[in-house]
């Protein structure tokens, strides 16, 4: 009797475990399904177009997989798009310039964002929430509108030039728009919150007694920042840099609106190929190469990070 009930209990527990496992699988399945439908499928379509040939039709590409008259399933991959992309200096220059602009923007955002995040994390309780809200506040307005606002601010008769003229610092309005300066400004302005948020959460978690311990052992505050605070908030720095760098490389709106005609960035080139030239295959090939470069960066960073953790 006792043994029987025990066996039953074990079986029921087993059933329960199986059911909870099924439940867990379901919970994971939903986001995976979402990712598959909205990220993987579009990516595969872009990948397909990158290997297709251009053709005057709608859509303006030849199909990659065809069913021929003599009942053969034909897969035709055109690598010419990629050789074209790598063969043209314009594209290479656009890639390099995008990486440069994104890299400098990321460094600037880090230099500006770290003190900001530090200040917020160390602010007294009530202030902290207010400051935090201020960082997130720009997201309440459309990104596009905010970039347009800079057009007004930086214009020849905008408030910034007016102020400089009124103070007598300059005698004729500065050309601020359509410059690299405007692009960097727009980039740092737009992506700063993405830098501040992960940094804030990393700095806020830092145990302050560690800094007291460092001081107690004879370490001056500046040195303690570099030997204790910085290494212990490294993860926040990595996360913030990735969150700024990746979208910045492919950024289209900011260089298009604030940059000059010679601001060559890959996002803009892809746009021109797609809508100006109607060359979908080359545009897709560019997008794939960009993706490969960025994936390489992320993997490299992760490798570095995990190696440091092991050490």
């Amino acid at each position, binding site marked *: 009797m006792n043994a029987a009930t025990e066996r039953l209990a074990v079986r029921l527990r087993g059933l329960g475990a199986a059911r909870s496992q099924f439940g867990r699988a379901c919970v994971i399945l939903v986001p995976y399904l979402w990712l598959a439908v909205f990220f993987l499928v579009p990516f595969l379509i872009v990948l397909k177009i990158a290997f297709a040939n251009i053709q005057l039709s709608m859509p303006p590409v030849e199909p990659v997989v065809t069913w021929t008259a003599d009942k053969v399933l034909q897969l035709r991959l055109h690598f010419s798009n990629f050789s074209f992309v790598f063969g043209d200096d314009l594209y290479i220059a656009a890639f390099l310039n995008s990486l440069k602009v994104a890299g400098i923007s990321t460094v600037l955002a880090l230099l500006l964002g770290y003190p900001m995040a530090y200040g917020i994390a160390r602010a007294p309780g009530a202030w902290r929430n207010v400051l935090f809200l201020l960082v997130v506040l720009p997201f309440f307005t459309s990104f596009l509108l905010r970039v347009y606002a800079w057009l007004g601010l930086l214009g020849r008769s905008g408030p910034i030039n007016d102020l400089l003229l009124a103070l007598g610092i300059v005698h004729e309005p500065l050309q601020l728009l359509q410059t690299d300066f405007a692009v960097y400004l727009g980039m740092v302005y737009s992506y700063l919150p993405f830098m501040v948020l992960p940094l804030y959460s990393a700095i806020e978690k830092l145990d302050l007694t560690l800094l007291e311990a460092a001081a107690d*052992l004879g370490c001056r505050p500046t040195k303690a920042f570099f030997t204790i605070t910085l290494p212990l908030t490294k993860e926040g720095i990595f996360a913030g840099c990735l969150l700024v760098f990746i979208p910045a490389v492919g950024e289209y709106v900011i260089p298009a609106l604030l940059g000059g005609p010679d601001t060559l960035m890959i996002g803009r080139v892809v746009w021109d190929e797609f809508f100006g030239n109607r060359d979908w295959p080359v545009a897709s090939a560019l997008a794939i190469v960009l993706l490969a470069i960025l994936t390489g960066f992320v993997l490299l960073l992760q490798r570095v990070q995990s190696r440091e953790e092991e050490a």
Partner: protein
Amino acid sequence: MSTDPAARAATTPSPPAPYVRIERLTKRFGDFVAVRQVSLEIARGEIFCLLGGSGCGKTTLLRMLAGFETPTEGSIYIDGVDVTGVPPYERPVNMMFQSYALFPHMTVEQNVAFGLRQDGTPRAEIETRVEEMLSLVKLDGYAKRKPHQLSGGQRQRVALARALVKRPKLLLLDEPLGALDKKLREHTQFELVGLQERLGVTFVIVTHDQEEAMTLASRIGVMRAGEILQVGSPTDIYEYPNSRFVADFIGSVNLVEGKLVEDEPDHVRIDCPQLGGTVYVDHGVSSPPDAQLSVAIRPEKLQLARERPEQPDNVLAGTVTGIAYLGDATRYLVRLSTGFVLRVTMPNVYRREEQFEQGQPVWVHWHASAAVVVMR
């Protein structure tokens, strides 16, 4: 180690001169007074323990010694030097934090070496001193581990090694055993005292645990509400508390109120209505007649008997109302005819000793030296 002046001082005991001097130290946080007019002298090589409940100001006092808090008033001298305004990174003082505060991104070795590296000690010397320190705290072989790979007891020893490696003039310990389990605590207590004796470093310990204070300290300062109520050896504090608070805070005690009825230089007699009789104490007190006093008697100094003992004073009749057998001793609650309940602890010296029973009428008696008269 023998070249270390601190270590030499320990082997040749010198007359205790004030090594740490705290003068009328006050710390206010807004309206709140955390430490109030504390003056204290600590001798070289001493283990001084600040004991008190939470919020009594003991940690604030310790943090002022470390330099993390700036005193509102008063000054601190260490080895004759005024360090009141000296920042923590320039003080000859190290601290072992309650949470240990080990740097999680550094190995055990790097943690211990951290302090020496700040001073620009040559690399070879750092290596030998760190190695020496790690073997002193029995952690050789753990040098390359990270703090999260260690047990609580091992972390505590890394923290100790890190604080001791700079050979500080003064080592501050904030609840050093607080995070350890009971068995490990007892073991570590003795290790800590042994280490202190060997190195001769002056220790200031903060704790809320009276047992920890009693076993570690050469002197204890009992704190309440920002003030030091009594300073003395563990025996002084336990046997001669100077106030109701100290008597009650350290150990267990029977406290009764009374009035002086006989005041001689060699003895006093105090009328205690709560006991329904007088208490004879074999030492004089200096207090105005008719002053309200308290009499403190430790439970282990009370004795129980079946027959009325042959002594004229300090005998009361009562009934056993509660028994707690603890193995090494038995605790009794004895209700007197006045309704007052006395706590009595009887050691279990013999196996199968006859225990008193619930509801049994007994005589409580004590020696004339057992009771202590406290004024406050």
